[in-house]
């Protein structure tokens, strides 16, 4: 598993590779471990750090992204099937072959058979109705979720366009309408440069009004950074990883290339945070790029700290 998550040194990895190129059992074991890793990821069972490595390293390969999608759908289908198997009436309703074989195996009076068929038909109708209703509910939830995602994307795009189009120089490094240390609108954005407080500078302070829903952080990339994709891990100041985001979109802010990180404000309790930006090279190697620090405070609108 360490190999699959890119945790081995180059020498260790090379040794393992030579072994599995030669040994089918080991190769098979690797594929099985891959199945299990994907399943653990999909079932949310990986510890945060492994989950991050999975997203950044393991999913660097398009083949694996395909496998993940396929496994996701398979587990979904299996879970549905498990639901059917648990309920004998549903299972019977969906298996005419089983019914027929039972019918042929036992000689029962025709009246009993007719009653059983009638009962089954009623049961089947009820189950169908229930399934229909559940399906509609799922569709509605999916549509609502999708709508939320679209809204987020639209807001992000709008914000990126605004920031990229800004011609006014911002000496304090703040985008328009998003000053650090000031109360912001429902949609807030802040530009963060690398390791401000750690180098003795001012800690970037963000005061979020209670009703602010989204916070867009622009992480200015270190110079000459050129990666295939960018990821961020948000940590407490003690280093505990709270969550990660992958495939961050890029934007030009004040002429500087920045990775955009969109967060829901409710995810951020007042306190100090460290955001680690990572990049994935085209070969799939992951690299730590920079740390950004900020302090979150929450105040009512109009009240500046």
């Amino acid at each position, binding site marked *: 598993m360490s190999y699959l998550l890119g945790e081995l040194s180059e020498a260790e990895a090379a040794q393992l590779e030579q072994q599995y190129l030669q040994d089918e059992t080991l190769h098979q074991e690797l594929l099985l471990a891959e199945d299990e890793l994907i399943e653990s990821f999909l079932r949310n069972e990986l510890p945060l750090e492994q989950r991050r490595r999975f997203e950044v390293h393991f999913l660097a390969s398009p083949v694996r992204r395909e496998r993940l999608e396929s496994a996701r759908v398979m587990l979904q289908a299996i879970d549905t099937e498990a639901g059917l198997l648990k309920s004998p009436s549903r299972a019977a309703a969906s298996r005419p072959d089983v019914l027929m074989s039972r019918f042929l195996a036992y000689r029962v009076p025709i009246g009993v058979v007719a009653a059983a068929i009638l009962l089954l038909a009623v049961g089947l109708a009820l189950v169908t109705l229930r399934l229909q209703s559940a399906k509609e509910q799922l569709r509605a939830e999916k549509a609502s979720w999708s709508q939320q995602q*679209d809204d987020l994307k639209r807001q992000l795009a709008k914000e990126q366009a605004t920031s990229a189009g800004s011609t006014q120089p911002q000496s304090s490094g703040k985008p328009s309408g998003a000053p650090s240390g000031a109360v912001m609108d429902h949609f807030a954005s802040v530009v963060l440069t690398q390791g401000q407080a750690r180098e003795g500078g001012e800690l970037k302070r963000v005061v979020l009004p209670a009703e602010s829903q989204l916070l867009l952080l622009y992480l200015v990339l270190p110079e000459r950074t050129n990666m295939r994709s960018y990821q961020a891990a948000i940590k407490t100041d003690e280093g505990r990883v709270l969550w990660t985001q992958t495939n961050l979109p890029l934007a030009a802010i004040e002429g500087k290339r920045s990775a955009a990180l969109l967060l829901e404000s409710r995810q951020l309790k007042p306190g100090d945070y460290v955001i680690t930006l990572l990049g994935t090279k085209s070969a799939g190697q992951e690299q730590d790029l920079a740390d950004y620090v900020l302090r979150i405070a929450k105040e009512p609108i109009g009240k500046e700290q």
Partner: protein
Amino acid sequence: MPFTKHDRSLTPESFRQLLSWLDPNQDNAGEKYEAIRRRLITFFTCHGSQAPQEHADETIDRVTRRIAGGEQVQAPDPYSYFHGVARLVMKEAWRNARKQESLVEDNPSPHPAVDPRADGDTRQRELLSDLRLECMQHCLASLPPESRRLLVTYHQGARRQRIDNRNLLARQLGVSLNTLRIRVHRLRQELTSCAEKCLQKRITVLKRNQNSDTLE
């Protein structure tokens, strides 16, 4: 054994030489060739290759050419030799990808990417996702009942319970846990392959219907 498109530069004679180098027994050599190709694909996938099959074939092409060219192999066994060449192929692929990235960097897009087709893409992705699930359910339903039950039981429960389930299942079937894992892995491969074929068919039908709608 069929030649792939990457074998174009190879001759039947050079390929025969490769097989004899792998194993003097032709049948064994064929099996070894297939096994090496499979494992090379895993190797390139593990290194984040964007085209693992192509890179595996490229590795085999190079080894074949060297063997046919009479190169004296210093590696202790063919596998180590393949590994060495595979690493070179991988490094070249990285270099090429970096060059591509520099080209993109030299000609950056004037605006941050906002794709006007994004909404359409979302709908299409949803449709594809629905179709994929339907296909998977169809393929699962067409498995023999015992295979279906095995797959379902194997994947049931939360982490700890799943481990217990699997141990119990292996005991019930009278096989080792590893044999059970391999059996399930193959079933999953079978299921995935069936679902992929089904999906392709459905997409073809969908496209055909869309075209006929457009024509009407």
